[in-house]
């Protein structure tokens, strides 16, 4: 990262620079203020000392005399000479002694010593000037009445003479009366130069210190803050791109502060994320495996149902066709048909309660038991009574099956059947339209032990048809949750022209009708149906 100026560095340096400039300005201003105050006080103090010295040269009792007579005697000249010498020796600007008018607006000069370098000439004895600055009148009045020094010192700045300070003291005669006003003006020539030098020095030193500090501080920031953070940022970016945890760089940041914590946390996060992704991959793989197994299970379940048509190509006395369309997951519907012997055909239609793997497992048991017992030659009611009791054993899950079993004696057309809580089949008998096959009510299989199943019997003639189905047909839903219903099913068989259609085509048409009714609504339950037709025994076989 060396040589490359990161956004973070720039921001940090800029903020420190800004802070330095503000600090420098503040220090310079305070220095300027302090310096000025101290120097001005010093100048003023020295002006007062000069004033006190000048006062000792005077003979206060004679001052009024000089003004009244205008006489300049030897004593006056001596005093003036002393004051002139004092002006020069103290490098003062002016020393003057004046008599002030009662309202302090005019001053009449008694002595006036001017420094030769100023180029001014002195005001002679008795010269009266309206020169009192109104701003100072109150101060002067205070001095003249109380004899005390002014709390503030006079300070003025003129273009011609620069800054100067004034000391003003009253002059008392031997009787203690204030008879004159003594002023000393001293130029503060040194102030300006010294002050700017001082301020520049302060600024220079501050800037130098700040610059040094900046260098050290930037180095510190780079090493302690910027560089580790850039490392962490770079590492995080790298991780975001390749998702491989690499802790070597992060572990180099061995710090006990927040940056160290950040580095450790990022490192932990990388490890955790990698771990998490691994777990997720494993879980996903497991889920895929289970999904694949479920697909196989569904396939096995479907394969358990007879699915080769025509199933008995050499039997021309009847045609049979059946389909099962599972809903989303593996379900519990099943149909079955098989020859018990050469003269008996068994047909089964059943629905296990619930869905999923439990229903599918229960279906396998139920189907196997029914087929085994039916093939043993038992009457349908006996088959169900036996199967029911067997299913009830160890049925902790409380599953049950609705089932219809019919056994056709092919030679006579005698059809013996039993209904364990299943939807009654539709039958078209003796050339009549389809109607519900009369079925005596019996309880479902596996619901309760020792249930008696009532057996019924009819005779099927050539041309008769029997339709078995599960509630997936009649309870198919449209988008408004309306049921396909028994009446629609009955109407389909009686109103659609099915005369020339094979059984397969008829069931396909029924499927289409249900799909049209559902209008895109999801299929909630398995749709299973079986169609049986008794043929004329002239050898015709329409099975598609």
């Amino acid at each position, binding site marked *: 990262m060396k040589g490359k100026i990161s956004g973070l560095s720039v921001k940090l340096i800029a903020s420190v620079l800004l802070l330095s400039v503000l600090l420098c300005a503040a220090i310079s201003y305070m220095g300027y203020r302090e310096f000025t105050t101290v120097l001005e006080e010093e100048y003023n103090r020295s002006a007062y000392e000069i004033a006190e010295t000048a006062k000792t040269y005077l003979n206060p009792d004679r001052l009024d005399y000089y003004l009244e007579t205008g006489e300049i005697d030897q004593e006056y000249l001596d005093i003036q000479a002393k004051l002139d010498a004092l002006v020069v020796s103290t490098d003062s600007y002016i020393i003057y002694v004046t008599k002030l008018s009662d309202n302090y607006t005019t001053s009449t000069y008694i002595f006036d010593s001017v420094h030769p370098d100023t180029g001014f000439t002195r005001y002679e004895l008795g010269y009266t000037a309206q020169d009192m600055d109104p701003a100072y009148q109150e101060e002067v009045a205070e001095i003249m009445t109380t004899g005390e020094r002014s709390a503030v010192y006079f300070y003025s700045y003129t273009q011609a003479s620069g800054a100067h300070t004034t000391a003003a003291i009253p002059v008392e005669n031997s009787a203690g009366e204030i008879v004159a006003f003594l002023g000393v003006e001293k130029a503060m020539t040194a102030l300006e130069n010294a002050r700017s030098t001082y301020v520049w020095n302060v600024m220079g030193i501050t800037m130098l210190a700040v610059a040094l500090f900046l260098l050290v501080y930037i180095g510190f920031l780079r090493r302690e803050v910027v560089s580790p953070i850039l490392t962490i940022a770079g590492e995080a970016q790298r991780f975001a791109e390749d998702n491989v945890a690499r802790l070597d760089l992060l572990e180099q940041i061995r710090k006990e502060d927040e940056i160290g914590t950040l580095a450790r946390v990022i490192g932990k996060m990388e490890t955790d994320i990698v771990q998490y992704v691994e777990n997720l991959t494993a879980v996903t793989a497991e889920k895929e495996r289970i999904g694949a197994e479920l697909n196989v299970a569904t396939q096995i379940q479907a394969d358990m149902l007879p699915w080769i048509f025509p199933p008995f190509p050499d039997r021309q006395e009847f045609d049979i066709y059946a389909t099962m369309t599972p809903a989303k997951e593996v379900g519990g519907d099943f149909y079955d048909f098989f020859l018990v012997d050469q003269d008996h055909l068994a047909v089964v239609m059943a629905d296990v309660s*619930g869905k999923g793997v439990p229903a599918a497992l229960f279906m396998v048991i139920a189907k196997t038991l029914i087929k085994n017992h039916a093939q043993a030659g038992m009457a349908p009611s006996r088959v169900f009574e036996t199967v029911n009791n067997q299913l009830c054993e160890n049925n902790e899950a*409380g599953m*049950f099956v*609705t089932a219809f079993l019919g056994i056709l004696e092919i030679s006579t057309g005698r059809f013996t059947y039993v209904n364990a809580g299943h939807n009654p089949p539709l039958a078209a008998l003796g050339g009549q339209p389809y109607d519900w096959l009369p079925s005596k009510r019996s309880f479902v299989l596996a619901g309760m032990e020792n249930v008696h199943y009532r057996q019924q019997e009819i005779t099927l003639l050539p041309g008769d048809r029997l339709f078995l189905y599960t509630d997936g047909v009649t309870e198919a839903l449209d988008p408004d949750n309306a*049921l396909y219903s028994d009446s629609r099913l009955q109407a389909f068989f009686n109103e659609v022209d099915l005369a020339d259609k094979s059984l397969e085509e008829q069931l396909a048409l029924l499927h289409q009708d249900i799909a049209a009714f559902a209008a895109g609504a999801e299929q909630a339950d398995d749709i299973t149906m079986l169609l049986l037709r008794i043929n004329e025994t002239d050898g015709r076989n329409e099975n598609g």
Partner: protein
Amino acid sequence: MTITKNVDHNTLRITLEGRLDTNTAPQLEAELKSSTGGISELIFDFSGLDYISSAGLRVLLAAQKTMNKQGKMTILHVNETIMEVFEITGFVDILTIA
């Protein structure tokens, strides 16, 4: 489906609204499992129930078996559609429908 429970002494009254099918039956099964302890009379009010599937029947059968051991179970206000299901499946013979 909405399940409303009311317990009065040893009587538990459950009012169902909506559809009792594969998706909602486990909900009722869990409710029953947690609330039938010590109950001697279980009353179902089906006036708001529109539909019952085989999964729902399974829960009712389990409830009936439980109540056979500890008291009685009655179902009230069964609509025509559901009554038909009870009749087809033979549940009318084992349930007390008032």
